């Protein structure tokens, strides 16, 4: 069997590959939360605290897009996974694989953007590695970052409880639709901007305001993928109210134009969390104070059962499923 593009798009197909191959490590846990959990990061007990540890490779195209670039994503992507575990981002590593002939000016811009994002995260890039491959062996550049954070009490993605309320920290689909419209030549300019941003401060204020039972960033596979993973791992049903989903008008228009479900595409500066109903308003208020949380909303609730259900605006119901493969713009 061969790896195909679907395998890389998260969701059910990736789980197949993962389950069969990429989680076959017996040495997969250093004492806390390990690879077996497939959470946003691992947790390693260290003295009276915990180290959070995570990694992501970044291959976004185009390298620069409205609202961000591969450098900003490389830093935020990893810092946000640390944050999803409740961890304060401390230090990042950076492994770059670069194609021969790559423009050093562009590399400089990427580095500058990473540095700016690091400053915003309050983290440092402390160790790195660079490989240059011959022309054709890689398309431009790929950036891996790994990150270390510190947390006292980790937050998991599997802690949803019936009665919990689902909060999303802002509008859905911005990054994915920005990338797609930029990449496919829809000539929409800066009208749709990526939301790529570090969310640690937002997460911290939410944690300070109440009890967060589960948390995940809706990156690849989008909200659909994140909420399904959370529901499945927690053994609960999640019911989402279509009319409460925060989606920018421009993003909604673009999603209709491209025939793409905005819930299925990546966000790079958002959090989906399940919180106790009692704390929901306080947490929402705290999040809304953050500059990346202005559009936060309560969008659903957790019940007994399984699956994720969308309660549609005509009073119908349908499943929200993790997307199969990366969405492709379509006309029919």
């Amino acid at each position: 069997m061969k790896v195909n593009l679907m395998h890389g798009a998260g969701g059910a197909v990736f789980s197949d590959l993962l389950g069969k191959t990429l989680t076959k490590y017996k040495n997969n846990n250093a004492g806390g939360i390990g690879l077996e959990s497939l959470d946003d990061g691992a947790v390693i007990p260290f003295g009276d605290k915990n180290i959070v540890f995570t990694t992501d490779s970044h291959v976004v195209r185009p390298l620069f897009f409205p609202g961000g670039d591969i450098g900003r994503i490389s830093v935020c992507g990893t810092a946000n996974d640390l944050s999803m575990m409740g961890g304060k981002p401390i230090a990042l590593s950076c492994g770059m694989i670069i194609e021969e002939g790559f423009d050093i000016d562009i590399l400089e811009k990427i580095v500058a953007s990473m540095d700016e994002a690091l400053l915003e995260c309050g983290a440092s890039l402390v160790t790195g590695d660079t490989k240059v491959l011959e022309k054709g062996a890689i398309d431009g550049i790929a950036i891996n970052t790994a990150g270390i954070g510190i947390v006292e009490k980790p937050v998991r993605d599997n802690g949803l409880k019936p009665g919990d309320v689902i909060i999303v920290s802002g509008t859905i689909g911005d990054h994915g639709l920005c990338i797609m419209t930029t990449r496919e030549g829809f000539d929409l300019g800066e009208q749709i901007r990526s939301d790529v941003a570090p969310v640690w401060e937002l997460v911290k204020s939410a944690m300070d305001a109440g009890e967060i039972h589960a948390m995940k960033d809706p990156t690849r596979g989008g909200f659909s993928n994140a909420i399904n993973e959370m529901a499945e791992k927690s053994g609960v049903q999640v019911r989402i109210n279509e009319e409460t989903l925060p989606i920018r008008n421009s993003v909604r228009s673009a999603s209709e134009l491209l025939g793409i479900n905005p819930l299925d595409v990546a966000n790079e500066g958002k959090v989906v969390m399940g919180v106790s109903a009692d704390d929901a308003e306080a947490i929402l208020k705290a999040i809304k104070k953050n500059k990346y949380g202005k559009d936060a909303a309560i969008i659903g609730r957790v019940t007994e059962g399984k699956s994720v259900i969308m309660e549609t605006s005509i009073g119908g119901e349908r499943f929200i499923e993790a997307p199969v493969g990366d969405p492709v713009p379509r006309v029919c």
Partner: protein
Amino acid sequence: MCIAIPAEVLEIKDGNIAVVDYGDLQQEVRIDLVDVVVGEFVLVHVGFAIQKLSREEALQTRQVFEEVYAAMEE
């Protein structure tokens, strides 16, 4: 088939091109297939306006709909 969405014509340019607005989102589309002026509504499919919509109907889809519906209820 086929995805087509309504948009308002904001500007007509040379070469059968119009700038339209889908709702906080503007794009240039081809208007070879329709005769439109600024302010009219069109249905856009694969980057082409394929038909005009009357302004009222486009703005008030629901209202038209409910009229038909009301007529039925009789």
